């Protein structure tokens, strides 16, 4: 009797412990890596999660061959990435190495969950002078040790369907906002004679929170506004900001050059589909070329994002934020030595050329930029935008919240435009709500 009881309680206790532990470890946990395996969360840079993984595989294979370290890869879509990172930070249970949108760098830096880029890590990636200055500046807040290393560089440009342009008799891409709206109206057509447009001048992922927030930033600056005042207080509802957001939302609400269906699109690749299919003529994007190539689409052109006045410079000449993807090493990694090795490998000259070519993004190290692969018209346009017409999204700790709040406000405004009408007061009220929530969160 004594022994069975002992056995029973031992079994029960073990079971309780095991269940308890597995319950705690549920959710975003990664499988326990052995010493020669590290986990890597990659952002979706291809035209699908599988495509991203396939394009990353040769690089990771070369890494394993060189170092003997295996990489357990997970590609995460942009809609989930921010929350997945946050969950990992909260639980302290994340991958060894991960991608972050560079605009989140300061926000994530504040959590203290990532390895500062200094000492061994800084040495491994070859020091900061290897990198483009603008890209390196997105690694963290000014004056602080960065916690992320640039990996891919990006910038917004306008891409258009040349066939539809030709059909509408438009010879060159619009340069000012007024020209852009006028051209978009010419390109919005009823092609099947049912009295409703089925070809639209412009397309955007109206439900993509981060893409919307980028437009709030750019359009605000072009109109002479800012998202935060000099004292760091949010000014989402200032007159120029409202005007900027109104221009963007009006493309659907009053200019009627954007399909109401776009209000439901949450993935950038869906708008690229619209352009390829000829359902829309223009879009703002950072790197659609891999989608074009995958679909064998050749009728595309690229031009700078239209500005309020031609030739504008400084803040009013902003066409893009300093976009890109950075790489961080998780502080809680049990495998830091190998994680650092991967960071160094992914930012090496050869892999920078291979990866940025595959994803149609820009190398972030100067040595790779001169490769012939990056001398195309499209890359030059991107380079010009990045070098001369971009500003980093506000480098503040609450950047992530700002993106969520402004992006969601615009998402809701597009929804309103799709199902009814949107007035200037609606826009002001939505931005004011976002502003109040931002202020409360500070």
């Amino acid at each position, binding site marked *: 009797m004594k022994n069975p*009881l002992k056995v029973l309680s031992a079994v029960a206790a073990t079971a309780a412990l095991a269940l*308890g532990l597995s319950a705690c470890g549920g959710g975003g946990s990664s499988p326990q890596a052995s010493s020669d395996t590290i986990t890597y969360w990659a952002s979706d840079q291809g035209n699908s999660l599988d495509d991203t993984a396939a394009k990353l595989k040769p690089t990771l294979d070369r890494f394993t061959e060189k170092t003997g370290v295996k990489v357990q890869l997970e590609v995460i879509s942009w*809609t989930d990435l921010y929350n997945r990172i946050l969950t990992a*930070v909260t639980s302290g249970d994340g991958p060894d190495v991960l991608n972050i949108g560079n605009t989140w760098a300061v926000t*994530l830096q504040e959590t203290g969950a990532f390895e500062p880029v200094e000492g061994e890590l800084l040495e491994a990636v070859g020091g900061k002078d290897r990198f483009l200055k603008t890209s390196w500046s997105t690694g963290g807040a000014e004056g602080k040790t960065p916690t992320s290393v640039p990996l891919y560089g990006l910038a917004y440009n306008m891409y258009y369907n040349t066939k539809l342009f030709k059909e509408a008799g438009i010879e060159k891409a619009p340069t000012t906002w007024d020209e852009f709206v006028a051209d978009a109206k010419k390109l919005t057509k009823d092609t099947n004679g049912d009295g409703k447009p089925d070809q639209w001048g412009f397309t955007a992922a109206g439900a993509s929170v981060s893409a919307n927030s980028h437009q709030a930033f750019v359009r605000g600056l072009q109109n002479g506004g800012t998202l935060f005042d000099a004292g760091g207080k949010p000014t989402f509802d200032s007159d120029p900001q409202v005007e900027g957001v109104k221009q963007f939302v009006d493309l659907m609400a009053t200019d009627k050059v954007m399909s109401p*269906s776009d209000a439901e699109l949450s993935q950038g690749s869906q708008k690229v589909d619209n352009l390829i299919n000829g359902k829309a003529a223009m879009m703002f994007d950072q790197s659609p070329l891999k989608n074009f190539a995958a679909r064998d689409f050749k009728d595309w052109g690229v031009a700078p994002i239209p500005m309020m006045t031609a030739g504008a410079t400084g803040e009013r000449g902003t066409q893009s934020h300093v976009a890109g993807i950075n790489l961080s090493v998780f502080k809680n990694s049990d495998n830091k030595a190998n994680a650092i090795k991967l960071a160094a490998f992914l930012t090496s000259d050869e892999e920078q050329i291979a990866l940025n070519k595959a994803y149609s993004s820009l190398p972030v190290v100067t040595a790779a930029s001169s490769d012939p692969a990056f001398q195309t018209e499209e890359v030059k346009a991107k380079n010009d935008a990045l070098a001369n017409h971009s500003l980093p999204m506000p480098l503040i700790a609450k950047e992530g*919240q700002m993106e969520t709040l402004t992006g969601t406000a615009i998402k809701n405004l597009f929804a309103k435009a799709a*199902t009814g009408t949107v007035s200037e007061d609606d826009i002001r009220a939505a931005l004011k709500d976002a502003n109040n929530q931002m202020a409360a*969160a500070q």
Partner: protein
Amino acid sequence: MSHSALDSGPAAAGSPAAVDPEPGQKRAASTPPVRKRLRSFLPYGLILPAAILELLIHIGPMLLGIWIAFISLTQLNLTNWLNAPFVGLQNFINGLNPDSTIGQAFFSTVGRTLGYTILVVGFSWVLGMAGAVFLSSNFRGRALLRTFFLVPYALPAYVGTIAWAFMFNQRDGAVNQILVDTLHLFGDERPFWLLGQNSFGAMVIVNVWQLWPFAFLMLMAALQNVPTDVYEAAAIDGATLWQQFRRITLPMVRPANGVLLMVMSLWTFNQFNVPFVLFGATSPKEATLISPLIYQNSFGSWNFGLGGAMSVLLLIALFIASAFYIRMVLPKGADND
């Protein structure tokens, strides 16, 4: 404990060979003290694993959630949350201030969630009851139909909801294909189902679709216990089907109904999966429920303290409502039956 009493009882009273005048000593001799102590500990030992699990899985996180409601937890102190500053009731004040954006959103969301719960539970119950009554009579193909009814319940919730999200898509979804292209309703305009006003209705439909098989299953089980001769007697007395339903079926399934309605209401009030899969991280304003609102406050604006405070308010409200319901509505046990 009752075991040890039974064991020692006859031994103490009955044995004729009881020479020893001290009953206590005798008992001790027949049951070794170690074993006796073990036996009295046995019941506690057996519930210990469950108690530990309960503590780990339920009580612990709940207390943690309550603590978070009283601190200012943001990304600045997330990894070191034990040192987050204590702010007392500030999070509750922010969440409940009807003049602030956050407070207004909270109150309108609570109202909307209540309406949502009533609609979803109501429709689910009516459908479940109709299905159960329908299938309680014997006919060919009954088993097949029963399996068919249970499909939504057997399907993983995520899969079912994502299929609905595809169907409700404005441009290429099956709902608009049928309603607009085939039946030519709504004129030329393809309505949006996942944006604006319609999103609330779409969410109700998906949730009812998921929930009603549960009501059906529970009520069908309850109906099995109603003896058929009661119905036969009622039929002979000339009771109509409606009278039979009202006077026999409803009272007979009352105990099951009580539990069913409460459980369904709690689930629906806390609903998170359906809106999250249908709309993504942020629901349309017209369809924001309380759980997604808490999620948005916590993970959208990274204001975990506020999210925690709203969770605590929700917990208190549900606790009061449940306690009230259990006292007033549920059968009081043996003395009532």
